[in-house]
C-alpha cells in the first residue's frame, strides 16, 4: 500500500463516518420538530 492508498482510504472512512453521524443527528433533531423539514424549531403542535 502506498501513501496515496492509505490517505484515500482514510478520507473515505472519515466521510462514511460523517455521513452516518449526520443522518443520526438529523434523526434525533427531527424528533423534536413537528414537520421534519428543518432541524427542529421545537414546534410540537400537530396540524
Amino acid at each position, binding site marked *: 500500500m502506498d501513501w496515496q492508498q492509505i490517505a*484515500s*482510504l482514510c*478520507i473515505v472512512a472519515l*466521510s462514511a463516518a460523517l*455521513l452516518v453521524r449526520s443522518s443520526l443527528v438529523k434523526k434525533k433533531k427531527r424528533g423534536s420538530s*413537528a414537520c421534519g423539514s428543518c432541524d427542529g424549531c421545537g414546534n410540537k403542535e400537530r*396540524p
Partner: protein
Amino acid sequence: MMRTMPTPAITTVALVGNPNCGKTTLFNALTGLRQKVGNYPGVTVEKKEGIVSSVNGRDITLLDLPGTYSLIASSPDEQVVADVLLGSLKNTPVPDAVICVVDASNLERNLYLVSQIIDHGLPTIVALNMMDVAEQSGVRIDVRHLSDALGVPVIPTVAKKNKGTDDLRAALLAGPAPSSRAMQWTLPETVQRELDELSGMLSAAHKYRSVVAHHTALLLLSSPAAPDEGRTDISPEIRAHVRQDHEKLDFLGIDRYSVFIEARYKWIKQVCAYASSPSLSTGASLSDRVDAVLTHKFWGVLIFFALMSVMFQMIFSWAELPMDLIGHGFDAVSARVGSVIPPGDVHDLIVNGVISGVGAVVMFLPQILLLFFFLSILEDSGYMSRAAYVMDRIMSSVGLHGKSFIPMLSSFACAIPGIMATRTIEHPKDRLVTILVSPLMSCSARLPVYALMIAAFIPQYTLLGVVSLPGVVLISLYALGLVAALAMAWTLKKTFLKGTSLPFLMELPPYKMPSLKSTAIHMWERGFIFLKKAGTIILGISIVLWFLATYPKTENATPSERLAQSFVGRAGKFIEPAIKPLGFDWKIGIGLLSSLLQREVFVSTMGTIYNIQDDSAGSMREAMQRDVNPDTGKPVFTALTAICIMVYYVLAMQCLSTLVVVRRETNSWKWPAFQFFYMSALAYAVTFGVYRAGLMLGY
C-alpha cells in the same frame, strides 16, 4: 318597504360577516370587550359572547361568530355559523336577530352572505362597515337604496373609529324584522322545481322547519357527491331521490354547484347597480379587469399553461451560458489538481470522486436559481392564488378542489413545504390525497437529472422558430408529473379515500409588484441550501461512491472492466435483470440505487463512474454519449433511454426526507410506505410502457 311584521324584544344577536370585514372590531366597539384583532382571514375561531349595553337598560347578548363567505360550510368554523343560525347547535338557541357586517369597499362579494342570511328569515341588520375605505376608493353607496333592495335596515359604520355604533344599538333596540326581500334570486325552472320538491319532502319526512328544509335541500342538490356519505340523518328514500335529481340535472348539463352561486350573484349585481355608484357595480378596477382575464374559464387556464411553458423555456435557455462557465471552471480546477497531485488513489479520489461528483451537481445551480426566481415572482405578484382558482375546475374533476393545487404548486420547488401547506385543507381525506400525490410534481431535485439527460441526448431543434425541443421536453416532464398527480388523486378518491369534495372559496390577494429584494433573498436561500447539500451530503456520497466504484481493485483490466468488478458494479449487475426491461443497464442501476435517498445523487454518481470508466478528455456528458454496451455494441444511452430515465425520475419516490415528513403529517408509517410502493410501481410500469412504445416506433 322595510318591515313586514313587528318582533318581540330581542335578547340574543349573532354577529356574522366575511373574514376581514372588521367584524371583531365592531364586536369590541359594541360590547366593550377587548380581543385581539388580526389581519388573517378567519381570525375568530371560537364562539365569543359579549353584552351590548343598551340605552334603556336592556342587555343584549352578542355572539361573535367565525368569519365566513358562505353558509354552505366547508370548514368546521363555517359550520358553526350555519349551525347557530339554523338552531342545530346544542346549548345555543337560535339568535333573535343577526347583525351582518359588510365590507363596504367590497360590497358585491359581501352581499353573497347577506343574501343567504336574509333567506333564513331571521331579523337582520346590515352594518355597512369600512365606509371610510370605500369612500377613499371612490365607492358611493346609497344606503337608503341598499336598505330598500335588501329589505333590512342598513347602518353605515366605521368600527375602528367607533362611528355608527350608536345607530346600530338603536336599530337593535327598535327591533329589526325578517327581510321582505328573501329568496329574490331566480333559479332555472327545473332546478327551482327540484329544490322546492326536495324541501317539501324533507319537511314532511323529518319535520324540519321550512328554513332548515330549504337549506338542507340546497346543500344536498349542490353537493358534488351523492348524499350517502355522512348524511345518515337523511332517510334512504330521500337519498335515492337526491341521486335521481343529481342524475337529472347532470344530464341536462347543469353545474349543480355553480347554478346556485350564479343565480345569487345575478341578483346581487342588480342590487349593487341599484344601490351603488356605477364604478362599483361594474367592478371596473384595473385589478378586476386583469382578474377577468387571468381567472377566465378558458383564457385563465391557457395563460397559466403558457406562463409555465415560458418559464421552463427560459430556465433552460438562460441557464445555458452560466452552466457552461461553471462546467469549464470545474474542468480547470480538475486539470490544476491533476497537475499538482501525482497519479495514484488520492489523485483519482479528488479528480474522479470529489470534483466530478460535486461538479456534476453544482453545474445545475443556475437552473435552480432561475426556477426559484420565477416561482418567487409568481407568488409575490399574487398570481399563484389566481392559478389555484383557475385550476379549481380541473382539480374538481378528480375530486379535489383548487385549495389542493397550492401545495402541489409549492411542490414544484420541494415536496416538503408542499406537504406542510396541506394543513389548510379542511377535509381530512382531501388533505391525505393531496399529501400522497404532491411528490409527483417535479421538484427542484429532479431538475439536475432532467437537465443532464436533455442536454446530452435531446437534439437542439427549434420548433416553429421560437420553441426549443429541449424546452418542450422539460415542460412535458413537468406536465407528466401534474397529470400523474391528478390521475392518482382521481384513483385514490374513487377507491381508498372516497369522500365528498367541499366547495372552494378563496380570497384573491391584491396584485403587487414583486420585490426584487425578497426575490433575491429567496434565490439566495434556495441556492445556499443547494450548495450546502452539494458540499456536504453529495460530497460525502461521492467519496464513498468513488471507493465502492474503485474497490476491489482488478489488475490488468480496462477501466470499464474494473468498474464492472467493483462493489457498485456488482450491485448494478445484481439489479440489472430487474431494470433491463426499462432499457437501463447496470451503470444506470448504480445511479438508481445511489439516488434512492436523494434524486440529485444520480447526477453525481454518473459524474463519478463515468470519470472512473472513461479516462479520455472531455465532459461527463461526452463520456456518456460515447459509452457502448459491449454485449450489443449499441450505445448505452440513446434519446429513448434518456427519456425513460427522466420518466422514471418524474414518478419514482426517491426522497427519504419527503417520506419522513409524510410520516409526521399522517402520524403513521402506513401512508409513506404506501406512497413509496405506489410511486415505485407507477414509475416502473410507465417507464416500461414508454420504453416498449419507443422500441416499437423504431427508436
